[in-house]
């Protein structure tokens, strides 16, 4: 009787699962409140996309105004990738997490995003003064 050759890797089941685009977005969303003194927050809303795809929407939230702005969204396959970022300038396909991080970085550092967050922060502060 022969002993079966073990083809399984030693660390099977220990490889961390791929992070979905929603998880990556949420990580960035959690950072915004600390950068705006809590005046402007970010949130991620997950929903069904086209066909079997999923969608994560990145929202800017101004609690003082009860206002939300759907800034951009990512549609993605159930396993995470390929994904596509939908922003006002167009659609940006990404094949993996580093690709998504690059597009996210471009969006979050862009002039429209900086201007939008600054405007919303000012409006939140104005609302706070008026209250």
């Amino acid at each position: 009787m022969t002993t079966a050759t073990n083809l399984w890797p030693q660390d099977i089941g220990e490889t961390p699962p791929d992070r979905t685009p929603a998880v990556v977005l949420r990580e960035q969303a959690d950072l915004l409140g600390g950068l705006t003194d809590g005046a402007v927050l970010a949130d991620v809303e997950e929903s069904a996309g086209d066909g079997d795809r999923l969608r994560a929407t990145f929202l800017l939230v101004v609690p003082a105004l009860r206002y939300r702005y759907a800034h951009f969204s990512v549609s993605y396959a159930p396993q995470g990738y390929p994904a596509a970022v939908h922003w006002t300038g167009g659609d940006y396909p990404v094949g993996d997490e580093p690709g998504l991080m690059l597009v996210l970085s471009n969006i979050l550092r862009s002039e429209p995003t900086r201007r939008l967050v600054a405007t919303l922060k000012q409006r939140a502060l104005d609302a706070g003064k008026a209250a």
Partner: protein
Amino acid sequence: VSAVLFWNLDLGEASTSAASRARSLGDVVASVVASDHVDVLVFAEATADVVAGIATQATRGRRTLHLHQEHYGGKLWFASTHPSSAWTTIEESPRASARELRTEGAPPLLLVAAHLPSKLHSSAESQHEDALALAQLVRSAERACGHRRTVLFGDLNMDPFEPGIVGARSLHGVMDRSLAREEHRTVGNERYDYFYNPMWSLLGDRSSGPPGTYFVRRSEAVAYFWHSFDQVLFRPDLLDDLPLDPVRIVTRAGEHALLTPRGRPNATGYSDHLPLLFCTTTHSGDTQ
């Protein structure tokens, strides 16, 4: 709300005739505001200066118009006879703005205006994505408001029969008012609320107005010529108060004919889109 006017003014950056058309557009709007008791106006492809000018012209017609908070996406402009205090901006995106209007003696109304990307720059798949995003914004705004007295309107750059307008996961607009009254249906274990889309009744040349709101002649094999890219859809919660013909495509305002002698939108004199005039209750102004 008596009546709402939506118009894509075609004053985008590429427009070379914007300056010469702005005055005429203002005259048309002032005329419609006065004759049809319009109290909410929403424009797409406009500029802040032109909208301010229109408000001034319309005010001379004795209906004072207030300009409202800018849309952060920069695609939509709101003006109304109601003061800004009556409006709350609930949720926006680069292509849409959801605002709740609360007026004395009337139930609140959620007005969601949108200007989705053109077919010139967007594939059918991308347009569907945009429709899904818009549907999500509508649902989110309705949750925030706590009601579904919602009117969705604008230049959707899709026809009423396209998947982005009809699909359950997208806008779920149906042509049949009685079907819409069933409020929702279940697809794949998920509940999806209907919109009633009266634009179906305005398609083709046996309708009471022009066959659509936008005309384009293409050389490709499949060409519709007329399109109803500009649409208004109503949630079932509004249907009890909705007149039989809640929407009209405006083709004439005072001395201004918005169609050429051949019956096409007069793009050189006014806009390549025709305006939509609609109401939300039977107690409102006559849109006929």
